[in-house]
């Protein structure tokens, strides 16, 4: 009898809820940005506002529901984009080596060395700030880590016997790289990518603090967390709701990622 797999359930429920938020926020939380300044800040448990309101009278819960989209979509794009770049460039660097490797490694080093604040600031200042600009910037900034990681994994694979045999069979380089090596690198790439979503989520919320990403008043967990800190004494919900959402979502993604990765490996793990 198959044991019930708890992990995907425990991880999947929050993710499903967040997914619902992302897709249906217009219906579930229609009044997210409605202000009511005369009411001002109220604590959780106020009638009509289970988690209270902020200084401008906006409902915390509705804001958080509406904020799921901005909080989640960007990080997914960042992690995906970054890993794609990493897989392509990292495999090329790791397998082909030589001048290409040096060039790509130097490029990765250069990117890693640039201070994140500076880049975010400049780009935000030049291109009028904004959410997608931040996403693009973070994708570029995350990529060197993935490139290096993939490169390392590919180097480790490259001298394996099965690659030797592929070479003996005179398979084309492209074929070896992308049809043989990459699939073996995928498990660790997948774990990293999922971790990246979590990191990107936290990173985007951190950038919201510094004023980049979405403008003030736009529903977004990072923004809400930042705005909510000043209200802590009057409404702890303003901080707890977006904060818990960030942590739980990041944790669920990680949990799901780990479980999926274990399933990818057909071989038993027990010892």
């Amino acid at each position, binding site marked *: 009898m198959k044991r019930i797999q708890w992990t995907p359930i425990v991880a999947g429920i929050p993710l499903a809820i967040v997914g619902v938020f992302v897709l249906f926020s217009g219906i579930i939380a229609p009044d997210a940005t409605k*202000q009511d*300044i*005369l009411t*001002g800040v109220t604590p959780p448990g106020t009638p009509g506002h289970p988690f209270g309101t902020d*200084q*401008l009278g906006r409902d915390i819960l509705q804001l958080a529901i509406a904020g799921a989209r901005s909080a989640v979509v960007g990080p997914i794009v960042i992690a995906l984009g970054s890993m794609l770049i990493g897989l392509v460039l990292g495999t090329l660097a790791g397998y082909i080596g030589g001048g290409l490797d040096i060039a790509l490694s130097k490029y990765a080093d250069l990117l890693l060395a640039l201070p994140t604040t500076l880049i975010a*600031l400049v780009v935000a*200042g030049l291109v009028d*700030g904004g959410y997608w600009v931040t996403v693009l910037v973070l994708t570029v900034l995350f990529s060197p880590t993935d490139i290096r990681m993939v490169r390392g994994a590919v180097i480790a694979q490259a001298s394996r016997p099965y690659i030797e045999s592929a070479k003996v069979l005179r398979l084309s380089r492209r074929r070896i790289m992308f049809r043989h090596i990459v699939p073996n690198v995928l498990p660790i790439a997948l774990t990293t990518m999922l971790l990246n979503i979590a990191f990107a989520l936290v990173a985007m919320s*951190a950038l919201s*603090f*510094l*004023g980049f990403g979405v*403008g*003030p*008043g736009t529903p977004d967990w990072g923004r809400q*967390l*930042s*705005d909510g*800190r*000043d*209200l*802590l*004494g*009057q409404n*702890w919900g303003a*901080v*707890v709701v977006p*904060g*818990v959402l*960030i*942590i739980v979502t990041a944790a669920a993604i990680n949990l799901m990622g780990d479980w999926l990765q274990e399933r990818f490996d057909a071989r038993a793990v027990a010892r």
Partner: protein
Amino acid sequence: MSAPTPISRRLVLQGAGAGALMALLAACGSDDETSTTSGGTEGTGGSTDTTTGGGGASAQEIDVLTVAFPSSVSNIYPGQEAGNFNYYIAALVGEALVAPDSTGKLVGALAESWTHPDPLTYVYTIRSGVTFSDGSPLTVDDIIYSVGVAKDETLSPNTSYYWANVDTAEQTGDNEVTITLLSPDVAFEWGPCAANAMWVTAQRFVDAAGGEIGTPAALFTGTGPYKVTSFEPDKGVELERIDTYWGGKAPVKTVKIEFIPEETTRILAREAGDIDMAVSISLDQEQQWADTEATDVLFAPDKSYVGIDFNTAVEPFDDIHVRKAIALACDRATYVEKLLNGHGEVATALTVPEQIESVTGDAASARAKLAPIFDLPYDLEAAKAELAQSKVPDGFSVKVGVSSSAPQVSQFFQALAATVAEIGITIEVEEMPVEQWYDTIGSPDWGLAYMWYFNATGDPAELISWFLAEGNPASYTNEEVATLLQQQREEADPAKRVDLIVEAQKVAMADVPYVPLWWGEAATAIADKYTIEDFGPYTLLSPWTTRILTKE
């Protein structure tokens, strides 16, 4: 978050706030305290607020007072870096000829007295028996040298413009200095003042430091009640009392100023008893401060002005109907109550009441005097009617830039945006670091902007000498106003001068180039075993540690 102050250079890094786990802290924080009064009297008017808290208090010896500042300074000479906190530190170390008392009236400091025989001349009698922190006596030469330092654009870039109108400073007697101006300007009286633009030192000190002032290596040697024993930018400043100070021995022997950027860390430090006092705490957190063990919160008006600027050279703000429409859409009373938690006052002028209290007599009369300058009510219907008469009757779209260290202003604009959306105006709020915000002042790219201004002096014409004069951020010109400004510059009678200043603003405000929003308050947290004598808007700009009393 750290206290917002646009003059402070430090970027307010809001990064270190609390996450979900902070709820635990909030709950624990309000548990076990002995009750503490939440704040002293409200600071609406009157600069002589003192804290409640029973019994008498006296100047007992305090060995060490640890004070937390929300941001760091990189130079302790305000001529080089003119943020609020630079002034607070300099106030303990340096002095000048005159100083404000707690009501904002100028009294003698290093000058025993002074006269103003004709519109261009000021004669100061220098106090004798004053010594620098190293024990050497103050001479008239030192005063003259210090005027030179204050005038010098490389040594004092931030404050030299106050001295642009000064022609000469000469010794005219054993203990006498005469300063002559190029053109009459009564506002000059506030120039030689440590709360504004002059700090007396001696040439040999500056020379010994290789021509530098206020840096961690050079420090600043002045005549004040303390001397700086250590200055580490981003860490703190330590000061030792000078027992031979001419004004008497201060109660606090050692002052340790610590730079702690994160508000919550400051609260925790106070909770742990690691700090005794914290200046410029954020109004949003004042309840948390009050809930902290053994802590009082004192409020006082801080002579700050917050208001909308229109750049009248930029469409559609060249149309008075548009400006009036927006002005009528501002529910200023609600903003003060809700966004500032009541710690502030609806502003009716560019001058703050504390700048004319010493002339009109008291807080109430000061406000009465300023009330007629700007009195447009909150009336959305009237706003709609005004817009209908304008050249954009269907509304328009505009962006406004707000500094990230001014969250209340950001909230104000968001609230305003929601209100004016109903009459067809779309306001988009863009946040930016404070340094970028400086660029938006008077810029043609930002038709709608705001100003958050901290008045340094008690001179009622301080802000209008910028805002109503040539080259002001609103691109506003008016012959009548210009004449009135000129007249007040020359008017020696304080009461008449105030009338002229009020008149000038009345005329200007009829055209609505600015919309005054509120006059602000600042909050200071202090261990409840201490209190500050006569705590008011000028306290921190004077030797404030001399006023720390211990409660019985």
